[in-house]
């Protein structure tokens, strides 16, 4: 099982529940003692200079528990993107990097301008089935489960490497490591000494700035990075010639600090802190008078203490707090009736009837409308009459109780002015506000132990509290506590066969407990060639908004209205009453081959897999969703490969390909309209391409470089083909320790199809930007 350490290296391991505890401890201790003695003898015999020339013994610096696993022994499909590749590709954002990972695709949510990444297949509206970690800190929001890429305060320039585990791996990376894990490791501040400045400007409103300074004194090192990133987003379905007709611009900025110091010869302390602010344009709903743009403020504090007790034993204690504030305000005008508290309650019992009550009120003034409203208000009609009428005129098959009809009667009666019901059509204006504050407190202890030459374990325990304060979504403050216990072990059964086994047990307040096991075998055909067989299970816990919503929108500062309200809640709302959502589940089996052909400097990884996903929640988690169920099933079969070739020190190639065959089975859709059912049936596959090929070539000249990439996605969004190429060039100079550089990036869309939804397209096929920077 892969395991991230603070240097980002991958370490391996498994659980030991076969032998008795005593026997294990005894045999492991003996093995440890033996191996240490053997090691000392082996090295002393040839360290002839130590007693003569070197004052002290040279310390063992790279301990067994800290070293990376050889790639052929990694029990998972992993794509590693290094800093050099990030610089070569020249892209602006983290999601763009994920295009280079086989089987991953980029989509875009339609409501909040959030890029979503799916591995194989997933709903693009809210990205919540991939775990994303930055230096061990989960940026997966748990209140409203999602990863918001714009909110991650990490500059691409500060990233050392991104390890993408393609497949579920909760046993190592924790809860919600569902379809895969994107593990971002930032550079140690001691590795970025000096000042770095960048500026980027281009079409589509690209306007990015970056400045970073790193210094050190004694053995302390620190870095402060500030970044601003802005663009105009998509241009809309009908825009052309560079016009932007889609409201989704964004401007985000942050300052992040990273400090590292040794506390003593075996202990390292790392601290990080960050403040971030952002503005995202959001399109307005029909009842809103102006756009409910999103203003966000985030921050986090993170610390980790890592101790290396011996060459074979290390531990770390990590704790962090992160906070996320988001506000959306807009003026809105809507029917006074829609703020009637009784209609609000009625919606909780029978949402479709509530919608009809409002719909019928709009007919006041017509003969049919006056008759029906008057009949209901006077108590002259029966539920059966109304049901028959709605079926005949609207095609709606409703089931209305007498009590629910009486509620409508009360609602209409309040709009009667003594003469008529025209007041029911009254419009009132006010201010809407959607607020959300999420806080996470997380503490984790992890222990890595090399018991012998053949056994290594990683185990740990963690506690996390997710707390959300929001009148809009929860009508107050709610929280969820999660306790996690995990263990992984790597056992070299024979020199050619490795077994990795592990699991995570998770207990939490709002969902049932869950255990996620993982088992992998790596059969080494040769030192750098292996076949792997991996079986892994994981769950995604329904979030607080899915499981326990009290979601409604309050309108304040209302004008004069017949209900005499100063503020009120829009009747459409969500409550937890009907929810009993189960964990989303995945069981993934893969057969893979990894080989490194050293003579050619070529690495090849191929896998075939089968993912079985059950209890998926596919419904849109929106205010007006009529039902939310965990009953979608998805079967995904496919194959993917990745090839990296470095023919010489000046050139490298990157080639990935994927074939995905996904099949979705919806659960109970009886409450949905035909349109909603059609939309739901395609939502899980909206951003999946059946065939996917990415090829990239980089050439390094003397003081210049060029990188060209081509993307080809077929049967994307069911029928489309999406092709584009990118070219990034860079020229560097050097004067007395100052290293200025300049670059140009061009992206050309060969096909003009939108991403997941029709508005997600650009009005030009060429997106470009200029970049300039200075390092000193």
């Amino acid at each position, binding site marked *: 099982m892969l395991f991230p350490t603070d*240097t*980002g*290296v991958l370490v391996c391991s498994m659980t030991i529940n076969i032998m008795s505890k005593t026997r294990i401890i005894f045999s492991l201790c003996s093995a440890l003692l033996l191996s240490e003695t053997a*090691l000392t003898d082996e*090295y002393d*015999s*040839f*360290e*002839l*200079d*130590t*007693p*003569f*020339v*070197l*004052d*002290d*013994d*040279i*310390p*063992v*610096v*790279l301990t*067994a528990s800290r*070293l*990376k*696993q*050889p*790639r052929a*022994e990694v029990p998972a499909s992993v794509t590693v993107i*290094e800093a050099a590749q990030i610089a070569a590709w020249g892209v602006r954002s983290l999601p763009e990097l994920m295009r280079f990972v086989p089987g991953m695709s980029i989509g875009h949510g339609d409501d909040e301008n959030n890029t979503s990444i799916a591995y194989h297949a997933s709903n693009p509206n809210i990205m919540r089935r991939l775990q994303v970690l930055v230096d061990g800190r989960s940026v997966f929001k748990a209140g409203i489960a999602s990863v918001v890429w714009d909110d991650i305060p990490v500059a691409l320039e500060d990233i*050392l490497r991104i390890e993408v585990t393609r497949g579920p791996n909760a046993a190592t990376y924790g809860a919600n490591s569902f379809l895969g894990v994107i593990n971002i490791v930032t*550079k*140690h501040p*001691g*590795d970025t*000494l*000096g000042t770095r400045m960048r500026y980027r400007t281009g079409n589509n409103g690209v306007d990015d700035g970056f400045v970073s300074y790193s210094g*050190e004194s004694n*053995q302390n090192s620190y870095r402060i990075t500030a970044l601003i990133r802005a663009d105009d987003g998509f241009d809309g379905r009908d825009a052309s010639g560079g016009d932007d007709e889609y409201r989704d611009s964004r401007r985000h900025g942050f300052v992040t600090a990273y400090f590292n110091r040794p506390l003593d010869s075996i202990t390292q302390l790392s601290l990080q802190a960050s403040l971030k602010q952002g503005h995202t344009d959001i399109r307005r709903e029909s009842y809103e008078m102006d756009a409910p743009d999103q203003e966000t403020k985030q921050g986090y504090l993170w610390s980790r203490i890592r101790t290396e007790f011996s060459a074979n034993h290390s531990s770390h204690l990590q704790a962090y707090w992160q906070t996320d504030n988001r506000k959306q305000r807009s003026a809105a005008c809507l029917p006074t009736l829609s703020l009637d508290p009784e209609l609000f309650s009625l919606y909780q019992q029978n949402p479709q009837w509530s919608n009809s009550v409002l719909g019928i009120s709009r007919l006041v003034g017509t003969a049919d409308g006056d008759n029906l409203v008057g009949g209901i208000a006077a108590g002259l009609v029966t539920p059966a009459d109304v049901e028959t009428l709605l079926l005949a005129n609207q095609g709606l098959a409703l089931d209305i109780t007498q009590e629910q009809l009486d509620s409508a009667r009360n609602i209409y009666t309040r709009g009667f002015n003594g003469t008529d019901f025209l007041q029911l059509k009254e419009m009132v204006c006010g201010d809407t506000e959607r607020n959300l504050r999420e806080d996470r407190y997380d503490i984790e202890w992890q222990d890595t132990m090399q018991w012998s030459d053949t056994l290594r374990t990683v185990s740990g325990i963690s506690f996390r509290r997710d707390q959300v304060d929001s009148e809009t979504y929860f009508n107050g403050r709610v929280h969820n506590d999660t306790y996690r216990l995990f263990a992984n072990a790597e056992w070299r059964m024979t020199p050619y066969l490795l077994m990795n086994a592990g699991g995570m047990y998770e207990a939490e307040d709002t969902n049932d407990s869950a255990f996620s096991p993982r088992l992998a075998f790596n059969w080494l055909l040769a*030192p*750098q060639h292996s076949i792997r067989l991996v079986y892994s299970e994981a769950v995604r816990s329904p979030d607080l908004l899915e499981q326990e919503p009290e979601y409604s929108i309050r309108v304040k500062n209302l004008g004069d209205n017949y209900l005499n309200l100063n503020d009120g809640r829009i009747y459409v709302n969500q409550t937890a009453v009907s929810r009993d959502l189960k964990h989303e589940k995945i069981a993934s089996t893969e057969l893979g081959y990894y080989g*490194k052909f*050293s003579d050619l*400097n070529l690495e090849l990884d191929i896998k075939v897999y089968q993912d079985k996903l059950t209890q998926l929640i596919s419904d849109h988690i929106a205010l007006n969703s009529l039902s939310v169920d965990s009953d979608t099933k998805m079967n995904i079969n496919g194959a993917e490969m990745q090839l990296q070739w470095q023919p*010489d*020190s000046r050139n490298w190639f990157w080639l990935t390909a994927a074939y995905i065959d996904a099949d979705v089975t919806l659960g109970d859709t009886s409450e949905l309209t035909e349109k909603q059912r059609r939309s739901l049936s395609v939502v899980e596959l909206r951003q999946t391409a059946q065939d996917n090929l990415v090829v990239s070539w980089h050439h390094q000249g003397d003081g210049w470089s060029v990188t060209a990439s081509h993307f080809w996605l077929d049967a994307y969004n069911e029928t489309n083909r999406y092709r584009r190429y990118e070219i990034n060039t860079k020229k560097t100079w050097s004067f007395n320790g100052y290293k200025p550089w300049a670059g140009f990036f061009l992206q050309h869309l060969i096909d003009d199809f939108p991403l997941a939804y029709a508005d997600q397209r650009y009005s030009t096929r060429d997106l470009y930007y200029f970049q300039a920077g200075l390092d000193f």
Partner: protein
Amino acid sequence: MFFGCKDAHTVYRWLSICLLTCMLAISAQADDARIVFVAHEKLPSVEQLVEKTSALLETRSELRLLHEPPEAGWQSYDAVVLVGPQALESWSFEHSPAAVAVFVSRDAAAAYRQQLASALYLEPPLKRQVALAKSILGSDRPLGILVQDKAQWKNSGLSALPLQQALVTPYFVDQYGNLNRALLDLLKNSHALIGTYDTELYSSTNIKNILITAYRQNKPLIGPSSAYIKAGALATTYSDLDDVARRLSEILLTGLKEQLWPDAGYNPYFKVRYNQQVGRSLNLLLPDADELAVRLTNSEREN
């Protein structure tokens, strides 16, 4: 091979080594010579060296501590082997027989060039370490060397090596203000750091920083000596006690028999050592150490 130029002097040196080895094997013995090894303390490794050298020379040699001269004085010996820099620095050459220094660095021996009959350097030559790095990583991979300053670069004799052809670039720490900035620039432009035998630069304090920084960027350290392998250096060439005894016996034999002391130099006999765990972790397929040592030896002889 990688330095590209054939050097007549080297060829001559190797021929003479071969000749001497043959001489040793056939009959030549130094049985009538009296040799003393002088050290600052009686370490097991020194005792073994005395034994092994004596066996090769088929003579009895003595091991004495610095402050324990024989009654007849040091001049009663035909040759003295000064073991380690402590013995070398404290030695009084005034009443000394021909002195050969072993277990000393090139720099330490250079300071006593006039007084010493010969010396065998402790460290492997940089050229050999570069050849080792190229064999592991590929011949077209740029490599970097850390050097304190240009003066040291000149004094060390490294500047005379045709490093540019071998894509080896020196990074001078004093030009960067501090070690880490020089190291970062080196690691950015090179596929490996070749350690030089500078015990100040590669001190036990600095080595931790150097190794951790290098490995964070997946770049290995080659050398400077076998003592650094356990710490986390990927590979080095090194001469073990057998190699030292073998070369020392040749030096003594030539010096005593022919009255012609070989120049101070590096040990032509060596082996290759890896930290296998580091190699695996860097995803490198390491060539067989014994075969590589033979290949490097042959390559040095050809040059």
